[in-house]
């Protein structure tokens, strides 16, 4: 014990008189370890605490505070009480002692065992004895932290202090300048406002002391170590200011004033603060400021200088409107929503009717912002606006004006949509239904294409208004859409029509089933009348275009299962009609695309799954098989074409991967037995011979069907196991190494590799790979083999399948490894090769370099530079292009070795600007452009030469080349 106290005394001595700061830590550790108690420390400090020298006393208190800071958790309530009395007393002492005292008090406020009533007494003496703003930065932070701690654990006691607490805080933070402390102070203020402390008569004071920082204009110094951002300050201050309706009478005038500011960020902050605060307010808080706020908001939107401010202004209008709509009115107060909307209407409505439609968009946006806030507001505004818009439309004859008006109407439709609740309220537009419909339909009959496009999207919006359109309107709309689809040549219009039809069909499938689809069907299958040969060709063309549009429209409307049931048979009919020569290859491909799109967009349900797996896929397989069996003699069916077959594959693979896994498995096993056993029992109109052997065929018409097998088995979800996979693999391997038809052996190789890719790890996979590779090697090694290409294709696909089994990162690494292993050989080969073979090496090299990721390129290039420069003067266009494209990114950040070769580089690049190929000319000009950003002193010697040489491409015959030349020459 004696030794302990001697140690303690020496620690104290060294800290207080010896001024060794590290001893505080040692003491704290000792206290924590239980070597001494805090009481013993106080006793040991006795002399220094009672010293007549203020600095000694300060040092003593500091030691105690530092220790407390570390060990506040272990204090008992009794100890805390004693320490508090001591510290409160010390606040009255000499001013040099105040900092350590505050530090100690802050440590004590973290104690959970703070005795009741102590928070109040602590704060009383703090507010009474300390003038916070004359303290240093860190001491002020102690005070704020104390407050924050106490507010967290002793809220009830602080509230008991009443308005005195608020007053004390206001006095403490008044004049604070450091952003770090401000952030703390704002947090305290936010707590006061949000947690319902009694502001008493100090509401205005609290507002003044915080709002004087609004709007925050602070930019952190570069390399700011404290990480205080402007956004953080803005958001915390906004929380304070918008926290209570009590601030409304002060805040709103302030916002109006700040909106006049020239500083963009101040405007933006004000608008956002306004939006935030009105969500807390009631109409009575807002009432007297409405006019001023509206005037400012209107000005900001009408004379907008930036989109951000405009949208912030519109958001504020919406927020104010919804605040006013929300409020419950007394019987005697006037409806301030009406007052506000009257203001808005008065200032905006007449702009919609001005002859030049100049301010029509800002006004419309303001009205729509108000409109979208509440159902009540949208009723008032649409009632006031729609009649005049509709009247305008009928009075204006110019298409562009009509289009503007239609667009405005559409924006209204959309803005109302956002505020409609789920209650079965009628759409606010019910009253205008007839005139809106006739407006849209008349626009659809106009000849102006942009008007038609706009009308289509308005029609979509109208249809999305719940319960607005009657069935008869929909029928009429479908009529119009069909007419436009069948007659309108303009591409943009037909795209809009197809889109609109898709949207409408989702909402009203019946009209499309009964009307739209049958009419498209008749139109597609009607034969073009070719009376005389002169007109035949153009009619053929337009008939083709009509069919094209019909096919894509059929895909677009097929979202609801009921529509799919009607539309897919039509598409299948197109395919079977193609058999007998009614449709061209291109049209058949489009029909397949439409089926694919439908497979991608339908909801995954039992019904649609059956439709695809039980009807469509068997039908596709059967059609393809029919075509294959017919063979190539006589009338060759379009279904034999590679383009058609490869567009069928995605239909099958999409439905296998997306729709109903169990049905997909069924499809896969059916397909497997079809291809392995010739089992045709599941195919419709079954008149096939029984001895079909698709995988052992040497007739290409049948062997190429293997590509459909790829779709059936390779797209199954991984969880599903492909039936009879080993049999299939053997057959495919045999096939891919024996048939001569390219599509057949490539598809077989693809299918094989797809299956390998799915196979789980294990011996069976290893042995399979092993045997396949053996087969490939033996074919490649035998010089007499006629299937070198086939074996090579198989190897490439298998390699790809194995590569994809691993992480994507792996592929980058392989690229890099491949490069580093091969580039040296290539350089060597290049140097050794005879002149006429050199281009081949360069081609290989520049292609490999092109595939490398940028970082690798940058590190590897210097070594290859001379070779690449050589490549630039190689006559092969492909080599030039790929070299230029890998040089360009390097030139943006040139390595020193490149700058040394500047002379040679420029010479070669300038020579290429005269190349016969425009791509080469363009890329070389881009490279030259990039060189202009090299260090000034390096390029100065060649400047005159480049400028002279660039004069020629300025007169190039191609505009795109001239554009690059202009850029390059101007920057040089």
């Amino acid at each position, binding site marked *: 014990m004696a030794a302990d106290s001697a140690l303690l005394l020496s620690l104290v001595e060294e800290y207080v008189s010896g001024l060794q700061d590290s001893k505080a830590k040692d003491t704290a550790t000792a206290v924590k370890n239980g070597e001494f108690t805090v009481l013993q420390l106080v006793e040991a400090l006795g002399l220094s605490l009672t010293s007549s020298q203020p600095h000694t006393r300060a040092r003593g208190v500091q030691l105690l505070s530092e220790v407390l800071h570390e060990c506040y958790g272990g204090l008992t309530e009794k100890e805390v009480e004693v320490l508090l009395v001591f510290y409160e007393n010390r606040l009255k002492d000499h001013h040099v002692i105040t900092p350590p005292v505050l530090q100690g008090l802050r440590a004590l406020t973290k104690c959970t065992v703070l005795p009741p009533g102590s928070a109040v007494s602590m704060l009383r003496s703090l507010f009474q004895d300390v003038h916070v703003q004359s303290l240093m930065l860190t001491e002020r932070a102690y005070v704020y932290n104390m407050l924050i701690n106490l507010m967290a654990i002793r809220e009830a006691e602080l509230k008991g202090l009443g308005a005195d607490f608020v007053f004390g805080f206001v006095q403490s933070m008044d004049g604070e300048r450091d952003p770090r402390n401000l952030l703390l102070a704002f947090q305290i203020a936010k707590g006061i406002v949000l947690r319902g402390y009694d502001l008493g008569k100090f509401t205005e004071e609290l507002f003044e002391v915080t709002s004087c920082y609004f709007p925050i204009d602070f930019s952190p110094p570069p390399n700011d170590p404290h990480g205080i951002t402007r956004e953080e300050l803005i958001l915390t201050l906004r929380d304070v200011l918008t926290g209570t309706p009590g601030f409304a009478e002060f805040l709103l005038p302030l916002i109006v004033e700040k909106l006049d500011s020239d500083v963009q960020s101040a405007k933006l902050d004000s608008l956002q603060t306004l939006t935030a605060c009105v969500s807390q307010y009631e109409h009575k808080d807002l009432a007297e400021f409405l006019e001023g706020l509206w005037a400012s908001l209107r000005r900001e939107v009408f004379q907008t200088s930036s989109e951000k401010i405009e949208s912030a202004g519109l958001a504020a209008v919406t927020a104010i409107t919804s605040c006013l709509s929300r409020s419950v009115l007394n019987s005697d107060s006037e409806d301030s929503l009406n007052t506000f909307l009257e203001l808005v209407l008065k200032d905006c409505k007449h702009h919609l009717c001005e002859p030049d439609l100049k301010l029509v968009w800002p006004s419309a946006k303001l009205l729509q912002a108000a409109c979208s806030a509440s159902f009540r507001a949208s009723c008032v505004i649409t009632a006031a606006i729609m009649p005049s818009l509709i009247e305008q439309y009928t009075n204006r004859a110019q298409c562009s004006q009509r289009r503007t008006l239609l667009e405005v109407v559409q924006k209204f439709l959309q803005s109302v949509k956002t505020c409609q609740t789920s209650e079965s309220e009628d759409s606010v537009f019910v009253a205008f239904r007839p005139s809106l419909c006739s407006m849209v339909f008349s626009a659809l009959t106009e000849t102006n294409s942009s008007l038609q496009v706009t009308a289509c999207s308005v029609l979509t919006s109208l249809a999305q208004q719940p319960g607005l359109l009657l069935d008869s309107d929909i029928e009429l709309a479908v009529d119009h859409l069909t007419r436009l689809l069948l007659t309108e040549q303009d591409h943009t219009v037909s795209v809009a029509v197809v889109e609109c039809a898709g949207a409408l069909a989702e909402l009203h499938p019946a009209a499309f089933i009964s009307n739209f689809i049958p009419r498209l069907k008749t139109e597609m299958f009607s034969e073009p009348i070719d009376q005389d040969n002169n007109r035949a060709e153009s009619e053929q063309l337009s008939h083709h275009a009509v069919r094209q549009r019909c096919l894509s429209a059929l895909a677009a409307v097929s979202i609801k299962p009921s529509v799919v049931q009607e539309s897919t048979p039509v598409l299948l009919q197109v395919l079977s009609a193609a058999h007998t020569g009614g449709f061209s290859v291109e049209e058949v491909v489009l029909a397949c695309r439409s089926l694919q799109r439908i497979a991608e967009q339908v909801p995954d349900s039992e019904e649609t799954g059956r439709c695809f797996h039980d009807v469509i896929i068997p039908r596709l397989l059967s059609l393809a098989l029919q075509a294959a069996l017919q063979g190539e003699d006589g009338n060759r069916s379009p279904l034999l074409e590679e383009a058609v077959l490869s567009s069928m594959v995605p239909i099958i693979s999409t439905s296998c991967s997306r729709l109903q896994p169990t049905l997909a498995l069924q499809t896969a096993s059916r397909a497997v037995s079809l291809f392995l056993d010739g089992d045709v029992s599941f195919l419709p109109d079954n008149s096939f011979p029984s001895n079909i052997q698709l995988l052992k065929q040497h007739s290409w018409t049948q062997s190429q069907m293997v590509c459909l097998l790829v779709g059936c088995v390779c797209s199954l979800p991984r969880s599903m196991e492909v039936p009879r996979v080993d049999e299939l693999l053997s057959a495919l391997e045999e096939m891919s190494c024996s048939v001569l038809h390219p599509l057949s052996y490539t598809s077989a190789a693809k299918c094989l590799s797809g299956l390998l890719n799915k196979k789980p790890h294990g011996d069976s996979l290893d042995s399979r790979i092993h045997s396949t590779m053996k087969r490939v090697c033996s074919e490649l090694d035998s010089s007499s083999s006629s299937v070198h290409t086939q074996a090579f294709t198989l190897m490439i696909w298998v390699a790809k399948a194995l590569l994809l089994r691993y992480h994507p990162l792996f592929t980058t690494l392989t690229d890099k490894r491949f490069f580093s292993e091969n580039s040296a050989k290539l350089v060597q080969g290049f140097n050794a090769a005879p002149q006429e073979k050199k281009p081949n090496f360069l081609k290989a090299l520049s292609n490999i370099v092109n595939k490398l990721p940028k970082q690798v390129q940058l590190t590897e290039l210097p070594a290859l530079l001379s070779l690449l420069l050589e490549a630039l003067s190689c006559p092969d266009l492909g080599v030039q292009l790929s070299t230029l494209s890998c040089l360009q990114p390097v030139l943006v950040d040139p390595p020193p070795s490149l700058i040394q070769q500047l002379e040679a580089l420029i010479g070669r690049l300038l020579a290429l600007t005269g190349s016969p190929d425009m791509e080469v000319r363009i890329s070389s000009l881009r490279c030259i452009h990039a060189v202009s950003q090299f260090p000034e002193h390096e390029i100065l010697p060649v400047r005159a030469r480049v400028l002279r040489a660039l004069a020629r491409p300025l007169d190039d015959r191609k*505009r795109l080349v*001239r*554009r690059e030349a202009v850029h390059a020459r101007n920057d040089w």
Partner: protein
Amino acid sequence: MSGGTTLENANPVIFQRSGERLLADTDADEDVHDPIDDREIFDILSINDPEHPLSLEELNVLEQVRVKVNDAESSVDVQFTPTIPHCSMATLIGLSIKVKLLRSLPERFKIDVSITPGTHASEEALNKQLADKERVAAALENSALLEVVNQCLTNKST
């Protein structure tokens, strides 16, 4: 908007920029010869106004209809409209346009830059200055002036 000097026309009317030129199918076709047309010259001339951070197109100083080019006869005629009738920057704008065209067009072209009739107080004197080859050459030897011109011609993006 720093810089203490007062702007002559601080709040000009701003016009919409026309969009990017749409690529025609023939643009990629090696065998078709594209003649230099009005729009191409207009695109070259997206010059910054010395007073505003806006391009001349946005200020309506240049309009496509006032750019005339004849590729066969190798002549270009550009008329520009100062934002206000007593704009002191008109000479600088004219000079910038001229320099830009000199740098961007083949040498065979004869370049005429003038002020749209009736839009500037001292129209005639300015047109004379801009048409005078010697004066243009002399102006470009003044390094301070050249720097301002180059500043106008630097693209916003760079």
